[in-house]
C-alpha cells in the first residue's frame, strides 16, 4: 500500500536527533509492548509480513504523531482481534473500568503459550524467510533492470522511490518468501531476492550525488528486464 510508512525520500520531517547513551527502552510500557508482540507472535497465527502490514494501516496522521512502540501496540491490538485472541472492545472496557474485582486468579499459561525457558530457542531458531525451493533466478549480477511501477493496495516491500527506476543487479541473495502474498495469507510464492543498485542520480535527478547509490533488496516480481 502507498502508506505513510513508505518514507524514503520525503522532506520536511525534521532533523535526525541521536540521543546520547540511549536506553534500550524508554518506559515500562515499551518493554511490555515489545515482549507482548513477540510472545503473541509465538502462537504463529500470523506471520512477520502480516504484522508489518497491520502496523502500516495506522492512519497516517496518527502514525507520524506517535512513537515506534505505539505503532506496535496499534498493530498488535488489530492482530489480536483479527485472529480471535481478544476483541478490542474487551480491551477498551478493561481500560475504562479497570480489573474485575471478582475475576478469578490469572490462569496458568495454556499449552502453547511462550514460557520463560522457551525464549532462547524462540530467538535463536526463529524461522527464516529464506527458502530451499529450487526456483530459477530471473536475473543475474550485472543485469540492468527496472523496478516495476506498481501500486498494490495490500502489503508490499517495493518502496515508492524506486518504482519505475532503472538499477543494476548487484547480487542474488537466493530464494525467499514473497511478502505481498504472504501478508495476505496467499502463500509464500518463493522467488529470488536481489540487491539492486540504483544510482542516486537515477533516483533523485540532479539532487543526487553523482558518486552515490542506494541498494534496495527486491524480489523477482518487482523487477523487469530492460
Amino acid at each position: 500500500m502507498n502508506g505513510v510508512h513508505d518514507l524514503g525520500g520525503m522532506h520536511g520531517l525534521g532533523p535526525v536527533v541521536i540521543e546520547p547513551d540511549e536506553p534500550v527502552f524508554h518506559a515500562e510500557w515499551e518493554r511490555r509492548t515489545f515482549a507482548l508482540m513477540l510472545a503473541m507472535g509465538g502462537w504463529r497465527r500470523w506471520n512477520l509480513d502480516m504484522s508489518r502490514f497491520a502496523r502500516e494501516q495506522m492512519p497516517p496522521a496518527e502514525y507520524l504523531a506517535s512513537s515506534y512502540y505505539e505503532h506496535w501496540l496499534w498493530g498488535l491490538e488489530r492482530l489480536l482481534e483479527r485472529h480471535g485472541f481478544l476483541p478490542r472492545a474487551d480491551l477498551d472496557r478493561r481500560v475504562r473500568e479497570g480489573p474485575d474485582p471478582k475475576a478469578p486468579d490469572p490462569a496458568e499459561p495454556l499449552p502453547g503459550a511462550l514460557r520463560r525457558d522457551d525464549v532462547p530457542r524462540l530467538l535463536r531458531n526463529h524461522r527464516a524467510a529464506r527458502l530451499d525451493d529450487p526456483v530459477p533466478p530471473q536475473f543475474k549480477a550485472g543485469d540492468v533492470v527496472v523496478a516495476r511501477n506498481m501500486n498494490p493496495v495490500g502489503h508490499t516491500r517495493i518502496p515508492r522511490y524506486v518504482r519505475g527506476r532503472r538499477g543494476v543487479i548487484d547480487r542474488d541473495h537466493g530464494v525467499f518468501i514473497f511478502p505481498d502474498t504472504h501478508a495476505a495469507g496467499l502463500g509464500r510464492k518463493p522467488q529470488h531476492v536481489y540487491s539492486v543498485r540504483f544510482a542516486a542520480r537515477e533516483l533523485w535527478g540532479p539532487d543526487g550525488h553523482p558518486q552515490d547509490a542506494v541498494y534496495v533488496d527486491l524480489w523477482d516480481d518487482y523487477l523487469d528486464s530492460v
Partner: protein
Amino acid sequence: MSGQHGHDDEHRKGHDHPHEHEGHATDDPAHPHNAPLSDVQLRVKALESLLTEKGLVDPAALDELIDTYETKVGPRNGARVVAKAWVDPLFKRRLLADSTATLAELGYIGRQGEDILVLENTPKVHNLVVCTLCSCYPWPVLGLPPVWYKSAPYRARAVLDPRGVLREVGVELGDDVEVRVWDSTAELRYLVLPERPPGTERLTEEALAALVTRDAMIGVTRVKAPGPSR
C-alpha cells in the same frame, strides 16, 4: 491490576522518561518520537493483564524477552566482531565473504539476523544502513534499534540526502567518496565494518572493541581513536 508481575522493576536507569507514576510524557517536545499518548501505559497494562488471565502469555516469559535485549544482546556483540576483523585478516576475509556463517560461529545468529551481510567502509566507500519502510536492523549483533533509526526523519532522508545526514552528525565526506545506502527492504540485515582509526595499532582486540560504537556499525559515524579531547 493484580500487581503480581512486579513490573515496576528496580533496574530502571536514571535516564528514563517519566512513566506511569509521574504523570504523562506527552508534552515533552524534546522527544516527539518517544512521547507516548497519555493513556498508553494504562492500555498496555490492561492488555497484558487480559492476555495473562486468558493464559495466552506468561509474564515470566515477557520478563525474559526484555532481559535478553536489555542485558544480553546488544551492540557490544557487533563491536567484538569489528575488533576481531581489525586484528585478524583471515577472519575479516571470511566475515566479508560469508557473513552469516562467520557470525554464527560466534553465536551471533537468530531473530532479525537470519541472514546478515557485513559491509566494509574504506577511504573510498562509505556504507550507511536504513530501513525506509519500517525498522529492520541486525538484532543479534546490534540489539534493538535506537529511536533515531526508527524515526521518520532518518528513514526519509537517509536515501535522499545521506551526506546531509552524515554532515549533521559530524561526518564530512569528500566528493570522491562513494556513499552506498542500504535500504533493508527484505530479510537481509546489514552491519557496517567501520574503518579502524589511525593511532590504534598497539591496542588489544578488547580495547579496540571498546572504541566501536553502535552508530559506526550503522554507518552514521566513524570510530574515533581514544584521546583526551576528542
